[in-house]
């Protein structure tokens, strides 16, 4: 396992569990003993997540990545001491930022829920490896992250168009689509990870899955209204 294995979700989970800071220590850049260079991936992820933290009102200094070799114990100690100092100065998570506990939890949960969506939306950028460490500072902009959250995509099945063919239901990776034969399919928005698989899968002649940008999703149609009456049936 490499630093590049550190998932955005791991970091968010630590904050959700009440940790005041998260430190990621990786091998020195450009000194990978393999051809993996996963520390760049971790660096990239950290920059994205720090911008997201800023967006939800958290102090991004609570997340830090440093690179060192196994022979640099004193450097590790120095970095960690410095980080602990920073975190202590920032105060407890939420409190330090003036956000109350419930609000903090709901913001972090909202971001955690969007992790799959963020990974997909930023797929190309997350795979980038830049030449210089400084270049990462510009990789993600504040506006870009604001847009990412303001223009969150949702998917919705138009009950008038759904033919209950079951294709989207079978393809959904998280079993977020409920439905049956002759029963209009409905996306469980709680489970949906916004990957768009249903949107791609819905046969064009039906065109039932809608992509909704930055707008609320219409409520699901009541269960009793989901039966499709077919001609001749």
């Amino acid at each position: 396992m490499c630093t590049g294995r550190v998932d955005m979700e791991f970091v968010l989970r630590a904050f959700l569990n009440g940790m005041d800071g998260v430190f990621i220590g990786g091998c020195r850049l450009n000194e990978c003993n393999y051809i993996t260079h996963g520390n760049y991936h971790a660096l990239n992820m950290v920059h994205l997540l720090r911008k997201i933290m800023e967006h939800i009102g958290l102090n991004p200094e609570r997340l830090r990545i440093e690179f060192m070799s196994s022979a640099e114990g004193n450097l590790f100690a120095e970095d960690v001491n410095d980080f602990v100092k920073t975190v202590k100065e920032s105060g407890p998570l939420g409190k330090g930022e003036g956000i109350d506990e419930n609000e903090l939890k709901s913001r972090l949960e909202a971001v955690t829920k969007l992790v799959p969506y963020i990974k997909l939306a930023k797929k190309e950028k997350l795979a980038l490896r830049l030449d210089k460490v400084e270049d990462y500072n510009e990789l993600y902009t504040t506006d870009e992250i604001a847009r990412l959250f303001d223009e969150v995509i949702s998917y919705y099945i138009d009950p008038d168009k759904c033919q209950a063919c079951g294709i989207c239901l079978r393809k959904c990776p998280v079993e977020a689509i409920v439905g049956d034969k002759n029963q209009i399919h409905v996306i469980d928005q709680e489970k949906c990870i916004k990957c768009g698989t249903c949107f791609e899968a819905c046969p064009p002649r039906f065109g039932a899955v809608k992509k909704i940008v930055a707008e609320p999703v219409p409520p699901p149609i009541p269960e009793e209204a989901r039966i499709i009456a077919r001609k001749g049936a």
Partner: protein
Amino acid sequence: MEGKAGDFKVTLLKKPRYIREDKCTGCTTCVEHCPVKYPDQFNQDISLNKAVHIYFAQAIPLIAYIDESCLYLKEKKCGICTAVCKNDAIDLHQKEEKIEVEVGAVVLSPGFEPFDPKLRDNYGYGKMPNVITSMDFERLLCSTGPYEGEILRASDRKHPHKIAWIQCVGSRRVTPGDNSYCSTVCCTYTQKQVILTKDHDAEAECTIFHNDIRSYGKDFERFYERTENLPGVRFIRSYVTIGREIPESKNVTIRYSTPEEGVKEEEFDMVVLSVGLNPPADFKNLAGKLGIELDSHGFCETNPVNPIETSRPGIFVSGAFKGPIDIPESVFTASGAGSQCGTLLDYRRGKLTEERIYPPERDVSGEEPRIGVFVCHCGANIGRVVDVPAVVEYASTLPNVAHAQEQLFSCATNSAKQITDMIEEKGLNRVVVAACSPLTYEPLFRDTLREAGINQYYYEMANIREHDSWVHSKEKEDATQKAKDLVRMSVARAALLQPLQEIELPVNKAALVVGGGIAGMTCALSIAEQGHEVHLVEKDTDLGGTARRIHYTLEGLDVQAYLRDLVRKVYQHPLIHVYTEATIMESTGYVGNFVTRVKSERGVTEIKHGAAVIAIGAEEYKPTEYLYGKDDNVFTLLELEEQIAKGEERVTGAQSLVMIQCVGCRNEDRNYCSRVCCSNAITNALRLKEINPQMDIYILFRDMRTYGFAEDYYREAANQGIKFIRYEPDDKPQVEAVEEGGQHIIRVTVTDPILGKKLEIDADALALAAAVIPSATSNEVSQLFKVTLNQDGFFQEAHVKLRPVDFGTDGVFLCGIAHYPKLIPEAISQAYGAAGRVLTLLSHDIVIASGSVCEVDENKCIGCGACISACTYSAIEFRETRQGKKAVVNPILCKGDGLCNAKCPTGAIQLKHFTDEEVLSQIDAAVPALVEVH
């Protein structure tokens, strides 16, 4: 040493370490208590260490030794270490031991000795505290160095701001006590030191005084450029002398001269002497005992066509003992020496190995987790900081823990027995050991589980030593709490661990070598001599590659005679199959199991092989500059050599001949040095002088890069009157064809930097040192074998220093100038090196792939491809299914880094042993409130 190749009897004298190696666990309790402080040899005597200490943080074995400063050894006093060692590892009465070993072959790798500038008092080293050697500076830079990574002056412990490096200290000089050769590594290590200095202090002013910058290695030219472009860095080409020490500041002055400003004296806060490489100290004596010859410099004499072979059969050499070399070349020779020992001893390969038999694995998948927790005291190492019994008591309250106990040393043999006994007695199915870093003992504990019939992946380690007791020795209560936290996290993960199977793959015993030049043939022969079939594929009609155009080396080897002999050996070897006029149509498979289709004069052949070696060579750049192709008397160095070999009058009879170096490289298009051209120019110039002593020869160069012993030939050329004129890249020589007095003349105009004016040279012939460029087929070959090229188009090894003949793709290896330009002896070394690496694979019947690899849950995969672009090993592919395209992992190619896992939006791809669930469970368990205790 008695006996002969295949049957040596060697008597070794082992000095006492005063430590029982089988008892010492490297805990360093003794070091802490030792009252004697003594200059730390590893830190160049700059700081102090104890009489008992571990040589350095990464020493192998990581155990202590006692040096001559010990009070007990000197005066039979003290003995504190004996009292504090909990494992009875100290033995102050150890005696020198005579050991006799019977071996079939010997490899000499004694390395080198840094040049000692004290021997020449004109540097002021040892007298002026702020004049230090590059070895001293290296330690200053290191975070485990004397000042923990701070660069401080010895005189006042202040940060030096203005630092000078003096190159070639002890090298490239014929004065007594100095070495005539170039030490080859100093230019680049100095640049590294400058870069690191600037990392420490961005404002530092760094000045490098040099004569030529010899960045001839792979990627070194870019490194040089990077250093040169840093702000506050000056490269000054000048001989220097150390001036004086300023009494108040202890600063040191250096006198130097530049063409623009004449002689100057400048003050520096610190002066670093870039010392060269000497032969290992006192090796003359040992050479006598071993019966090997040394060369005139005191390094190991080797066979000109086998730089790994010493003058005595059965004794091989690797590393800098054969002359100053850099790390990659050192690694080639190490691996190559292994291969040559293999050839010598092949007839008894594997005769001393014994197979381990493990009991059958118990299927525990249906059982509830029953975790055993073993908390180690590590003597006093953990125990005196962490309250081990309290941790044990706490562990037994954790969910799924069926047994918890303490151990004095979990790594001791009796402790392993205790673990296996407990597994049986308490029906444990998972084990957590809370002890040290998994780096040291994880393999041992996994083995313990296997011995007890439990899958080895049911093991988890909590590091309560390096991560806890060692760093929190003054906060005992907190350290105990942290140990509990770490154990709780490990227990949480352990409960979720899955049994994993390592994959055993059969290995096809044959090898494919692509490219029939010197490197390819040498490699093929070395593999075949160790009993493996080799398929040697050459695109040309004949074997030989670039060497067919080379006639002699600097050292005087008759290349054509050598080549004929090599080709004959290849054709005569029954295990080598040669395919000429060949192209590779397709190559599929993976380590141990490749299938390659080759079209050749034999028709289409399907070759099954376990390993592949890429040795496709390189090409010569066809110049577009300096009238090449327009004037018959302008040719490349290789063409010149062919004409000299043929005795062509127009070159051998020329009155005046000019060579221009760096044609087509060290420029924007090809930002690398072709490494071989300086030596080749001198080889040919000397040959011409031998044939026609009256000839005027001019070599126009940018930096003469005659690294290593080639420097002696450079000096010889200068002594013979060959004129060397340096030119700047922005003021290149001008070449025009002129008819004068009925004669055809090539007129070369160049600025002479010493005279400071333009020189016109009328030459009969002009030879261009044309760059070595990647083979036209390298792109194709890289795609066929799924290996990568660097930005210059040469093949990219897995690691520039550590794995210079491996690719990132397992089972594929690299040698010769396909890797980077190199001289014939270097290519031969690398070829043996590649053969050595091939043999480490082919000599096994199976390859084992880790169980901790990635796996895709197809139901969750949405075919987004994020995992595929994250994988640097091409281990993931799309597969068409009825539900659309799905990612699929080839577990053989997967290296278990888990980058894909972190990129996957749906969690479809999981790194086994480090799944989301397993890691998140640990993150949750970090919070005590989230774990229910019983």
